[in-house]
């Protein structure tokens, strides 16, 4: 296997099921670059898994959609060939392509929540694949659909046939997608970030399933991802894409043992590893200060109630049960868990965006849990939040200056003081003063997250709650933001309450970690304990599901 695009030869055609040659796809005018992908060539090996990895905007999804003939009309192929069984798919008629889709090439998508038609039963959607290709009779299709649902590991496939998608979990819906993709036993499966939207344990199960089916059916899989952990779990061959170009192409072994291109090296290095020893970043602080408890939480509870009208039965969900922990000055407390584990609810309780049912929250000695909004307001600046989605959390109609200063001014800061403070904090988070008068849409995701952090810092908070603050970012940006947070913590000794579903990130930044499961804190301890000597069965399960845990480099 060579790094550079290879020349076609007779032998390779045998081993190759699909060849992409010099593919160039144009973006509409006015985009940041002219081509979505430029002069891309690669072979999809028969019966293997080819991972295409890159950050957002690298052109990996465009490549996959071009193969499927599913590009949006605004994006056009300007050059190249996609050779399948000796024919160029780019020259095939719409009708011929339609016949190939689902039968010869299938695809599964990133977001299983929106990829199924909400008005059709699961069974009907699986049957539709066969019906569209005039395969079998109505009875045989139904029987095959049940088989397929069983094959992808859905419980009670017979009942599952009549379920609507909204009743299924994310993982189950992705299994339905896989069942549909497998219905006609295609030669090629294209998986576009199929596990990105899933929890780590569900992700592990779906990866297992794809690997298992690929081996059993001898399918060729083109697997698109941004996560090197996932690549290390599943890939035979790897293509690394950057800004529409293939920068590296090699076997999985080679990519991990000896990455050649600097971008690949950077991507691999940016993947947070699981640390062996606990953080020693704050050794410089005097011991007395280290033990300065900022917020102490005891027996916090929150139950969600819904329904409970005249005729419907009240439904309750225990979001947080008996949570106790302490936040220390200059330390980072991590909260990890799957979606629905209650970690976000806990974060909302801590910043009092939501009232707790019972329990104590001692902030520097005062119990803030029972305080009314008006009583808590003077303390609010001291407990600040950084949000997950940098695109949704900044008002698009406000300048950055306004976003930063409106809070402090409302809390009584002088306009001029707020302005000069905003400028110095922008510098602190790595943005220049020109940022002040600009609008959010002018910034990238990473820059916006810096603005979000700057906004929180305007109040000189004692506690920063970061709810999935880096989850929406590419790995290289993620690494920069994490570094920024650590720098800020060293300078200001702020206590960080770091909520994340990404265990590798948690292991990087946290001094102590809480593992949540179904509203309860099942384990608490330093990263070394959580990741290398977990006490709780659920923690063990969670840690073992981290993709590529054994293969990613150990960061120091």
């Amino acid at each position: 296997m060579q790094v550079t695009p290879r020349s076609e030869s007779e032998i390779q055609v045998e081993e190759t099921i699909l060849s992409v040659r010099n593919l160039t796809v144009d973006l509409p005018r006015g985009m940041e670059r002219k081509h979505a992908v430029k002069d891309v060539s690669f072979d999809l090996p028969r019966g293997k898994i080819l991972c295409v990895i890159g950050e957002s905007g690298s052109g990996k999804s465009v490549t996959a959609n071009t193969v499927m003939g599913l590009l949006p009309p605004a994006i056009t192929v300007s050059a190249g060939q996609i050779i399948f069984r000796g024919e160029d798919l780019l020259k095939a008629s719409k009708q011929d392509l339609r016949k190939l889709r689902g039968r010869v090439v299938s695809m599964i998508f990133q977001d299983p929540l929106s990829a199924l038609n909400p008005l059709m039963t699961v069974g009907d959607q699986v049957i539709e694949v066969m019906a569209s290709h005039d395969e079998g009779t109505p009875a045989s299709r139904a029987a095959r659909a049940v088989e397929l649902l069983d094959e992808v590991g859905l419980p009670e496939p017979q009942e599952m046939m009549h379920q609507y998608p909204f009743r299924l979990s994310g993982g189950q819906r992705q299994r339905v997608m896989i069942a549909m993709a497998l219905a006609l036993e295609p030669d090629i499966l294209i998986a576009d970030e199929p596990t990105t939207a899933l929890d780590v344990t569900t992700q592990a199960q779906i990866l297992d399933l794809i690997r298992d089916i690929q081996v059993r059916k001898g399918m060729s899989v083109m697997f698109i991802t941004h996560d090197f952990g996932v690549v290390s779990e599943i890939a035979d061959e790897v293509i690394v894409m950057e800004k529409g170009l293939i920068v590296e192409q090699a076997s999985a072994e080679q990519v991990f043992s000896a990455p050649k291109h600097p971008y690949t090296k950077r991507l691999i290095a940016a993947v947070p590893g699981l640390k062996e020893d606990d953080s020693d970043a704050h050794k410089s602080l005097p011991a007395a200060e280290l033990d300065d408890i900022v917020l102490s939480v005891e027996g916090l509870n929150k139950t969600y109630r819904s329904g409970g009208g005249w005729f419907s039965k009240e439904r309750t969900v225990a979001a947080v049960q008996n949570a106790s922990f302490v936040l220390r000055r200059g330390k980072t407390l991590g909260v990890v868990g799957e979606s629905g584990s209650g970690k976000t609810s806990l974060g909302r309780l801590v910043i009092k965006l939501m009232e707790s049912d019972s329990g104590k929250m001692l902030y520097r000695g005062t119990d803030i849990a029972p305080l009314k909004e008006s009583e808590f307001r003077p303390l609010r600046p001291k407990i600040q939040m950084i949000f997950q989605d940098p695109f949704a959390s900044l008002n698009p109609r406000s300048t950055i200056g306004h976003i930063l200063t409106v809070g402090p001014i409302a809390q009584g800061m002088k306009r001029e003081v707020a302005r000069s403070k905003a400028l110095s904090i922008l510098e602190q988070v790595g943005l220049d003063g020109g940022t002040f008068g600009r609008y959010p849409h002018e910034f990238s995701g990473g820059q916006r997250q810096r603005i979000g952090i700057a906004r929180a810092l305007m109040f000189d908070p004692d506690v920063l709650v970061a709810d999935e603050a880096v989850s929406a970012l590419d790995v290289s940006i993620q690494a920069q933001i994490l570094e920024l947070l650590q720098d800020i913590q060293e300078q200001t000794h702020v206590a960080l309450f770091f909520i994340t579903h990404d265990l590798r990130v948690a292991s990087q930044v946290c001094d102590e970690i809480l593992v949540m499961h179904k509203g309860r804190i099942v384990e608490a301890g330093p990263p070394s304990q959580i990741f290398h000597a977990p006490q709780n069965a659920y923690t063990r399960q969670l840690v073992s599901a981290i993709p590529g845990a054994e293969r990613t480099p150990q960061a120091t």
Partner: protein
Amino acid sequence: MAGFLLRRLGQSIALLIIVSMIGFGILHLTPGGPLSQYALTPGMTQETMDRIAEQMGLNRPLPIQYLDWAWRLLQGDWGVSYRDQQPVLSVIGRHMFATFLLMASSTVIAIAVGTWIGIKGATHRYSLFDYTATVGAMVALSIPTFWFGLVGIYIFSLELGWLPAGNMYTIGDGSVLDYLHHLILPSLVLALVNIAIWSRYMRTATLDVINQDFVKTARAKGVSERRILMKHVVGNALLPMITLAGMQLPNLLSGALITETVFTWPGMGRLFLDSLGYNDYPVVMGLLMFSAILVLLGNLIADLVAAAIDPRIRLA
């Protein structure tokens, strides 16, 4: 579901009470009143007038009159028309058919044409068709219904002589064909505004759905474009439209009022205007309550249909 129905029923009753109070209040605040028609009768004395008022119960305080009217209404007695001494319900009943005929035919036209224009505009976005439909909708929405009615009569009845200028049937004919012939122009005019509204909403709803992942999934499965459009796109796009249909009912009723007047259509709209002219309060109040019930019922049915179609509402 039963809880939902009961809750909606409670809301509807509360709304009906408020509507009836406001209607009753405003009606009796208007100058003139039912007695004014007697005032011009030659030889009418104040004494006689007072006696008539006493007989009709008009000399009592307004709240008492309201309660009296409401209590009778609850017992099924909607009052008697001042004009011809007929029970209000039977007066409304005689005019109901004409209005329902007009509303039903124009709704069918509006939904069929509007849905088609909306879907085609969305699937062929920024095409000549889409631009024409957009401009056409703006024009139809900006020009009042009666103007279209008059222009329609001028062109098709006076100049071309293809269609009758008014009435529901030719006296002495009354065949189904004759009814249909009379129905064409008024129902088209009444439908016009609703086609405009419906097509705009349908276009937006279709565009929302067309870019969703499950449409891409269907395409990846090899489903034909035709089936993708009919089954996946239109099915989902029509969901919000059902609620809209319920909300359009008041528009349709007020549109019918104008259309019926222009086309001398013997429906409830014309009855309403005529009764207002005669200060025939029992009939006006009756019509008001009747349309209020109709609108609430329409919304309730729209919600029930939406629930029946959408499993997320039906089963949740």
